[in-house]
């Protein structure tokens, strides 16, 4: 049979990151092919190359026996590739029909609304989806919007449909619908490329799975002949580089920070976690499992529907960031450019921004103190800047990240939450941040950290909580009798049972 997609020796490097290394794989018509890998394994980059958003440095892509070279997603669409994006691409103010046929159905520059509605109704009927084509998209529940997104891709009548985490917002009824759609496409001899973090769906939907790791091709397996363990084994096995500082040596220190029954009924549910003095606790999860929302809720940036917080055994109450910071909870957000820093302001102004209230007299800034403390922070974090007056936008990513952390440290937090503290920065800066976090932990700051790089979680953290769809699925650490290994984190992150070293009990991972 002629393959529908042939990826040959694709290589792609971004500034400093080798995202894809000589990746090749083949899909055949009438099959559902799963792409699987950890965070940063190269799945997204590969999809973006397939759909023409990025261009590969080298290598070839063959679609239906023809070599293609897409320069724009539109070209990919014309060649029969349609993709359902993880982030929704719908325009909220348009009707369902308008969204499905966006950029289509133009008759000499005019649109025929009635024809649109008719076509939308037909395609919804064809795939057995109940939806009002005349509804304003923003009024629909999120799951229905996702179905519109899928219909939009189907409306182009693609030969190849790419589904990137299509089910994360769907209810089980809609997942069943999607399953039927995929079966229908298969029977028509079309190809589906499927990505999901839900193990049961991988096996339900998929025929074959190609596993990527660290940007390299690992293996393609027949899903009918393999099981969860095989997949996880293939995904893990990266090398732990010895660039991490020592681990916590204190045993049985007292619990410093405690979060109980945290829920927001949307992104995270019934979260309980403790951080002991001297500990760095990590969250082990695939991207988008509610970790960011959880961090925001603990930091006071987001509302929660239930939950209490205890610091040094005493319950603390707060409903906004300001109060949380006063009580000693500092949060370093994941996006330093958008959330962490004011790029057009100076290093000095940024460093002091979160601790203004500490250096004031009747609302006036104590400039001398401010400059002294900022200088100390520049020295302590080894921020490479010409002066405090330099605008942050002119610094390198690593130094920007240090400013983003230093700004919170100037407020002397007792608890430090870090979301992706090393994303997109060079190795040297990463190591400096690891050492900094360890020394902070040694000084008695309770640290909770999420990083999408699982090797970093393993190397840096003393204990790891795995998170899957907003729920804690496992706890790894010496005390818990489960080793912090890549395999165990992957198991927890994909809602499988973690392996206990003792083997006596089965543990309580629900």
């Amino acid at each position, binding site marked *: 049979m002629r393959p529908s997609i042939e990826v040959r020796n694709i290589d792609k490097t971004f500034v400093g990151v080798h995202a894809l290394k000589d990746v090749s794989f083949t899909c055949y018509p009438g099959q559902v092919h799963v792409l699987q890998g950890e965070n940063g394994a190269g799945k997204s980059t590969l999809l973006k190359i397939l759909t023409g958003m990025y261009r590969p440095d080298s290598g070839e892509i063959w679609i239906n026996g023809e070599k293609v070279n897409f320069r724009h997603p539109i070209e990919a669409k014309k060649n029969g590739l349609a993709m359902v994006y993880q982030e929704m691409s719908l325009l909220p103010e348009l009707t369902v029909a308008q969204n499905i046929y966006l950029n289509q159905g133009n008759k000499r520059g005019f649109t025929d609304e009635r024809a649109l509605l008719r076509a939308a109704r037909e395609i919804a009927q064809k795939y057995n989806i109940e939806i009002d084509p005349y509804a304003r998209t923003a009024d629909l529940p999120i799951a229905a919007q996702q179905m519109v997104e899928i219909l939009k891709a189907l409306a182009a009548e693609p030969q190849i449909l790419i589904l990137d985490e299509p089910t994360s917002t769907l209810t089980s009824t809609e997942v069943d619908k999607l399953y039927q759609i995929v079966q229908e496409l298969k029977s028509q001899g079309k190809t589906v490329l499927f990505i999901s973090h839900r193990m049961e769906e991988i096996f339900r939907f998929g025929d074959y799975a190609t596993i990527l790791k660290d940007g390299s091709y690992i293996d393609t397996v027949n899903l009918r002949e393999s099981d969860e363990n095989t997949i996880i084994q293939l995904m893990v096995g990266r090398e732990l580089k010895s660039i991490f500082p020592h681990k916590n040596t204190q045993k049985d220190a007292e619990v410093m920070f405690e979060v109980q029954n945290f829920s927001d009924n949307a992104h995270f549910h019934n979260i309980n976690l403790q951080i002991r003095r001297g500990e760095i606790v990590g969250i082990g999860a695939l991207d988008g499992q509610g970790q960011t929302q959880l961090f925001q809720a603990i930091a006071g*940036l987001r509302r929660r529907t239930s939950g209490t917080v205890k610091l040094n055994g005493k319950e603390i109450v707060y409903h906004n960031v*300001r109060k949380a910071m006063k009580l000693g909870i500092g949060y370093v957000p994941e996006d330093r450019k958008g959330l962490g820093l*004011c790029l*057009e302001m100076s290093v000095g102004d940024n460093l*002091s*921004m979160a601790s203004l209230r500490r250096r004031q007299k009747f609302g006036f800034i104590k*400039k001398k103190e401010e400059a002294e403390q900022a200088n100390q922070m520049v020295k302590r974090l080894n921020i490479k800047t010409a002066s405090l007056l*330099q605008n942050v936008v002119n610094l390198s990513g690593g130094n920007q990240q240090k400013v983003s952390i230093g700004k919170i440290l100037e407020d002397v937090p007792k608890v430090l939450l870090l979301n992706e503290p090393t994303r997109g920065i060079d190795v040297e800066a990463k190591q400096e941040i690891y050492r900094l976090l360890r020394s902070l932990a040694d000084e008695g700051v309770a640290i909770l950290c999420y990083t999408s790089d699982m090797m970093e979680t393993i190397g840096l953290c003393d204990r790891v909580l795995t998170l899957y769809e907003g729920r804690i699925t496992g706890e790894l650490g010496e005390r818990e009798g489960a080793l912090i290994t890549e395999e165990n984190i992957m198991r927890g992150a994909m809602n499988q049972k973690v392996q206990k070293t003792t083997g006596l009990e089965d543990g309580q991972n629900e």
Partner: protein
Amino acid sequence: MNKEMSKDKLLSKHNLRLLYKRKSEVVIVYVIFFALILFASLSSDVFWGTRNLRNLLISNIGLLLITYAQLIVITLGGVDLSVGSIISMVNVAAVTLMTDSVGSWILISILCLIIGVGIGIINGLLVVKGNIQSIIATLATQTIFAGTALLIMSSPKGTLPSELCQFFTRGWGYLFPFLLVIVMTVLIWILMFRTNFGRAIFAVGGSEQAAECSGIRVGRTKIMAFAVSGLISAVAALYISFYSTSGNPLIGESYTQRSITTAVVAGATLVGGKSSVIGCFAAVGIMGIINNLLNLMHVSSYYQFVIQGVILILALAFSAIRSRK
């Protein structure tokens, strides 16, 4: 590179260059300002005359003060279209209510300041609680209060107490208006660069989300900034009224546009987070001298509008080019 950042390093040549890099707009505004002065003194023999210089000073104080009011909102990342209506409201209120007693002068002046603060707070609440963009919110209040001013006084009439007008525009041998400029400039500068409130304004303008994540009360900062802007507008309005000495419900009309122009010429960017108080002085100077020259050359004052519009486009284009670099 950053081993020792002692004090003398902060004053080293490198840092002076950095300062220029950060403040180049201000430097450029002053260069243009001085070039214009040079041009003016060469092209007109009366420019340096005491009368003309005095005139230049007292006729532009109003614009300078209203620019400060605009500057605060622009730094916040917004724009305040209602400053003109505050001027008209204050003018109408002052002319209608002021009598010849010192007591009424003080009382009505305070009332005028309250009007300014009140309109500012309304703007702030609309922006924060109503979640309306400042350009739309202040467009609405501008229309409402400009209309209210016309309801109170439908055509120019009435005068303000002449002693008061004399004092504000010529008091202590022109020392009073001069001091007013100095004191207001210093106060605004301190507010913007030496207080937590000022820093919060810059932070909110720089990145609202980053400010929020830093524990800055974004909503409160915005409301207060609009209130302070309203207060300064009212001070400017009082001065403008005393300078004109008479009642005119349309007196504030042109000031909205002029204040935005001067703030942008002074180096503020309309996306917020960046502005210069010191630059305003030169920017107002530039606008003032251009008008002054046109008057001295007996050019129709309508050309002044055309020229101001052109200058605004040039200044915006310049800052857009700079930020693209």
